């Protein structure tokens, strides 16, 4: 199925055949094409080239145009400090430096780098009509922080009416950006509001909920999907975030995925995340990355979950780690093997097979992922079934699916490493490759002879 369809299905809480995968590539795309963050974020050509490199390498179902929460702030007059290996940072806050709120206007779509990202969106949508293109906008509260500085927190108590006016203005800016992204071809508008992780649920409901709820309604009316990104520990706010009715919430490793899953599914909102950005993707190995992705996928499940890193990928994230995740996402067999090898460790309770063997019969165990969904498994099980037929009661065979706990235990107990594998009387006979029926029968004959 096409990436966009998969993403849309997951966000509409329908069961999917494969979990969609969205690498949040921002400046990291610049690294992929050998440019600095500064050059990359200022050029339509480089943003498009970087996103294309990421699509080729990471085989995603959706991709952000870019990841930069300073675009709106810059267009509204905040000064930026540019870095070569990071997104820029806002270093001036007009509303705390003399500018009046009434002097700020929703910017023109020609302002600062707004046309750069909108043109990149158009070109990427043309290039990849089947992928979910994500347009990322700065959430209203984070934009208010850019405009006001730390005052935003104190105004909650000292001048709540003023903060409401600022939030209203920031929401107008967010709607303007969302509308532009949608018009340029974005399929999903992600409202990225990391600063909300720093406030309590009651302040969130007072100063954030009314505005972002309105914003998500606006995006829905425009026919696009929406996601609410929050980086940082926002555990306390997941419930109120879901109440704002986005199609999706996306969180980072600071919040346990199972916690978010429980709340999101209760609220009928899809959820995404939360691969570990630094300790695993940036600093870990390809195997660490696959194991982390698998853990997220196993917790997330195939209903309403999208696999993604927790937030913007650090620029220097090794490409091979993300390629390894992409390989895992698209290879169910690999997922099964990894799951089983994980289970082989200390945690799996081995089975007592004393009563499993028989003095007069050959016992065949076929370890599979699941013969109904994995083609090699299906052929191997079929071959065993046909081969065993003529022996009648002298051969007993059984499929053990490692999607089930018993299958994992059987795999660990028999010492099986690969899937699918045929085991006869406890000996590993055929590994991975599907043998011709006669070969299986030859081996059955040997085992039977030994019994008589």
């Amino acid at each position: 199925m096409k990436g966009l369809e998969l993403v849309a299905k997951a966000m509409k809480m329908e069961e999917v055949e494969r979990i969609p995968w969205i690498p949040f590539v921002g400046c990291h795309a610049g690294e992929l094409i050998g440019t600095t963050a500064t050059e990359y974020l200022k050029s339509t050509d480089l943003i498009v080239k970087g996103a294309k490199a990421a699509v080729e390498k990471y085989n995603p179902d959706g991709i952000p145009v870019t990841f930069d929460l300073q675009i709106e702030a810059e267009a509204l007059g905040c000064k930026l400090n540019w870095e070569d290996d990071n997104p820029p940072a806002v270093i001036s806050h007009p509303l705390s430096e003399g500018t009046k709120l009434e002097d700020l206007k929703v910017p023109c779509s020609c302002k600062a780098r707004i046309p750069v990202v909108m043109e990149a969106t158009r070109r990427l949508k043309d290039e990849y009509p089947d992928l979910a293109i994500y347009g990322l906008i700065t959430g209203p509260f984070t934009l208010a922080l850019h405009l006001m500085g730390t005052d935003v927190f104190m105004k909650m108590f000292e001048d709540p009416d003023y903060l409401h006016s600022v939030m209203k203005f920031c929401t107008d800016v967010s709607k303007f950006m969302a509308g532009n992204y949608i018009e340029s071809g974005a399929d999903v508008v992600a409202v990225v509001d990391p600063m909300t992780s720093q406030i309590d649920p009651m302040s969130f409901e007072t100063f954030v909920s009314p505005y972002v709820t309105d914003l998500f309604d606006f995006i829905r009316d425009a026919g696009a999907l929406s996601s609410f990104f929050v980086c940082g520990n926002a555990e306390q706010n997941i419930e109120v975030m879901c109440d704002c009715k986005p199609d999706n919430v996306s969180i980072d490793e600071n919040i346990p995925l199972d916690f978010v899953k429980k709340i999101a599914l209760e609220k009928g909102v899809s959820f995404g995340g939360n691969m570990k950005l630094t300790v695993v993707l940036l600093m870990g190995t390809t195997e660490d990355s696959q194991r982390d992705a698998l853990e997220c996928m196993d917790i997330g499940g195939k209903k309403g979950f999208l696999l993604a890193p927790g937030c913007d990928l650090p620029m220097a994230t090794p490409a091979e780690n993300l390629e390894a995740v992409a390989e895992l996402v698209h290879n169910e067999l690999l997922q099964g093997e990894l799951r089983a090898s994980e289970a082989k460790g200390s945690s799996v309770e081995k089975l007592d097979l004393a009563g499993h063997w028989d003095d007069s019969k050959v016992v065949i165990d076929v370890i599979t992922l699941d013969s109904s969904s994995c083609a090699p498994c299906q052929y191997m099980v079929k071959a065993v079934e046909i081969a065993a037929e003529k022996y009648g009661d002298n051969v007993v065979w059984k499929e053990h699916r490692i999607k089930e706990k018993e299958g994992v235990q059987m795999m660990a107990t028999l010492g099986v490493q690969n899937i699918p594998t045929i085991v006869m009387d406890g000996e590993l006979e055929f590994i991975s490759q599907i043998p011709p029926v006669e070969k299986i029968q030859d081996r059955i004959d040997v085992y039977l002879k030994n019994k008589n």
Partner: protein
Amino acid sequence: MNDKLSTLAACIEFGKINKAAPYPPQMKGQDGADEITKQLLDEGVAPGDILSDALIKGMEKVGEKFSKNQIFVPQMLMSAKAMQFAMNHLKPFFATGEADRRGTFVVGTVEGDLHDIGKNIVAMMVEGNGYEVIDLGVDVKAEQFVAEIEKNPNCFIGLSALLTTTMANMEKIVSEIKGKYPEQNICIGGAPVTQDFCDKIGADSYNPDPQGVVKFLNSVAVAS
């Protein structure tokens, strides 16, 4: 104990800055940290006692509530602001050495990171707990920390990062400092930072809240 000291502790705990401040509603119209500190000094209460019996007590409450997720950054900033107003009265006395310092804490956000809300709160809490704080500000490079260590050989280092994208610089700074001063105590923090990350980059202490930093500094300062 002086009633005013406990009232001042409450002003810090609930973020009551001065009489004019509308927050918190339950203390509207009452004297705040600003006025009460002044009154206490006028009554002849020792600055060290005001610090330890009112300000630190109030801040400890704030720290506890923060680590239990009962309050968040906005409430903490209000307490910090109240504390600042009180400290403005006390600072002249400390500068003349009337109160002993427990140690020196050198703090900054890491190279590339300009977000200093968390760092400022930690600096204030550490200062309020009797340490001299050298705040290097934002976007601080390894060399600047190293230069401070040379000037203050027994100091503690605090690094802050808000972005996952700048955490890599935190690793770089820790390894540069430890390369020159293997015994140097470094604590790290910031929204995306975890204990796992701290272990990986070889820093000495990670704390999810300012109170944890103070506890860590106290434990090391007492031991040495």
